[in-house]
């Protein structure tokens, strides 16, 4: 029952916040809604028994990515900018308007149409099966997987992170005058 409750709440949070991300004009709010959406996903992970992933999700996104986003927004002013470049139709859209949303939705619709069929097929292939509410601890298993089967990816991701760290520091470093 808790699980179902958690699932419902999380799904609601996820989807609602995600849509809010899309429709909110204020980018700062968008970020905060993203935060909500990510927390919701963490909840969904929890319902799937992925405790480690869920907590990692919170840790990385809430503690890191979203704050970074907020920083970026703040450092870039958080205002709307009007592009000097014109689009195809000679319009100079602001940071999103009904036209762009229409296009986006249209594309989204295309994707939905393609995926609906896919999901239906999947639903047929994997009929809903009832799975118990026992959630074995995943931490040690993930640990073993990371250093055994997926050790290469693990190491590569560490290199990637290091690279990202250094790269970000170099790119965002204020240039010396002259």
């Amino acid at each position, binding site marked *: *029952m*808790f699980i179902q409750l958690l699932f419902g709440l999380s799904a609601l949070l996820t989807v609602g916040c995600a849509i809010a991300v899309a429709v909110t004009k*204020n980018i*700062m*709010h968008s970020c*905060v809604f993203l*935060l909500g959406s990510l927390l919701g996903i963490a909840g969904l992970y929890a319902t799937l028994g992925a*405790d*480690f992933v869920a*907590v*990692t999700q*919170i*840790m990385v996104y*809430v*503690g*890191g990515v*979203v*704050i970074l986003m*907020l*920083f970026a927004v*703040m450092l870039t002013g958080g205002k709307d900018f009007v592009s000097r470049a014109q689009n195809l139709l000679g319009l100079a859209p602001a940071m999103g308007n009904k036209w762009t949303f229409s296009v986006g939705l249209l594309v989204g619709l295309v994707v939905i149409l393609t995926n609906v069929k896919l999901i239906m097929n999947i639903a047929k292939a994997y009929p809903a099966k009832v799975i118990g509410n026992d*959630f074995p*601890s*995943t*931490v*040690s298993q993930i640990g073993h997987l990371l250093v055994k089967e997926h050790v290469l990816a693990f190491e590569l991701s560490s290199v990637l992170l290091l690279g990202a760290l250094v790269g970000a520091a170099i790119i965002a470093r204020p240039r010396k005058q002259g």
Partner: protein
Amino acid sequence: MNQTIVSYLSQYEFYDSLLCLFGNNEGLLAFVIYLLVALIIIGFSATVGGLGTYAERKISADLQARMGPNRVGPYGLLQFLADGVKMLTKEDIMPFTADKFLFYLAPMLALVGVFATLAVLPWSNGFMMADLNVGIFYLIAISSLVGVSVFLGGYASNSKWSMLGGMRGASQIISYEIPVTLSILAITLLAGGMSFGTILSHQEGTIINWFIFHNPFAFLAFFIYAIGALAETNRAPFDLPEAESELVSGYHTEYTGLRFGFFALAEYIEVFVVCGVGAALFLGGGNLPFNIQIDIIPLQLVQVVIFITKALLLYYVVIWVRWTLPRLRVDQLMSICWKYLTPMAILNLVGCAIWLVVFNGKSMADLVFGSH
């Protein structure tokens, strides 16, 4: 397995009778138990937080040879209630140019973030809301919401002081999360798990079994943790986000009334939480100094008392530090974190791992007194 308060209580006979009371609806019973315990914990924590303000003032007064609050209640003990009432009754002012949504949201987030951590705090072996497999990890993760709230609060106020305070706070919290996490990771390495239950069970026994005395690296890790935790909770000497001499009051400059109270409360409770975590991770938590096989509720209560005592002792140290050390500069703050604490924490982690390999997981005490 995830041990929870419910599963813990279910081993006692009175649980069955309670179950009968709720018409054998386990879910409902669990819900009620969770609710009750949560209310107790929140109430307690709020009290601790409130008393924290009192303690702060009293101890500072003591350190400065003053009297401190002494009018409301015996020794001024009820001062915090008076303050609380005052806050509740104050006008809730919102700046005109503020971002209303975020302005509301920020204190909430702070409180949510702090209260969420209470769910895994190990009051005793049994009395834990939930002993998650990823308990300590969860605690670290969810407490980073406080950082977001600090930032949002600073931003939403649309005031320069707030903005600067928020940015400082966010960067400080993110930065210091790293050494703190790394030093905690060393402990999880020693314990072999991230759940508080596991961690505590490894520290059963006397003082020599505490993780702080497990090996030199763990000893060092405790201090890294302590320093990092101070910074994470924006306590002096790391209270740059609310440095009153520079930023009036930092990120909550524009907040008044209840919302300010939220922030204040969140801060004090968070201090308590980090002290509690420190106690649980390094100082043996609520473990009794002797090994008792029987498991009865009063014993658990003794454990709770021990745990709270340890946490409050640390709390005292935190306040003591505040009134002892001067505030750092921003660059000093960052260089301490990135140039000293982080490398040390990494070395500690590696050192712990090497220790484990070399001494086959034995602690210093084991090596000295022989394994038991």
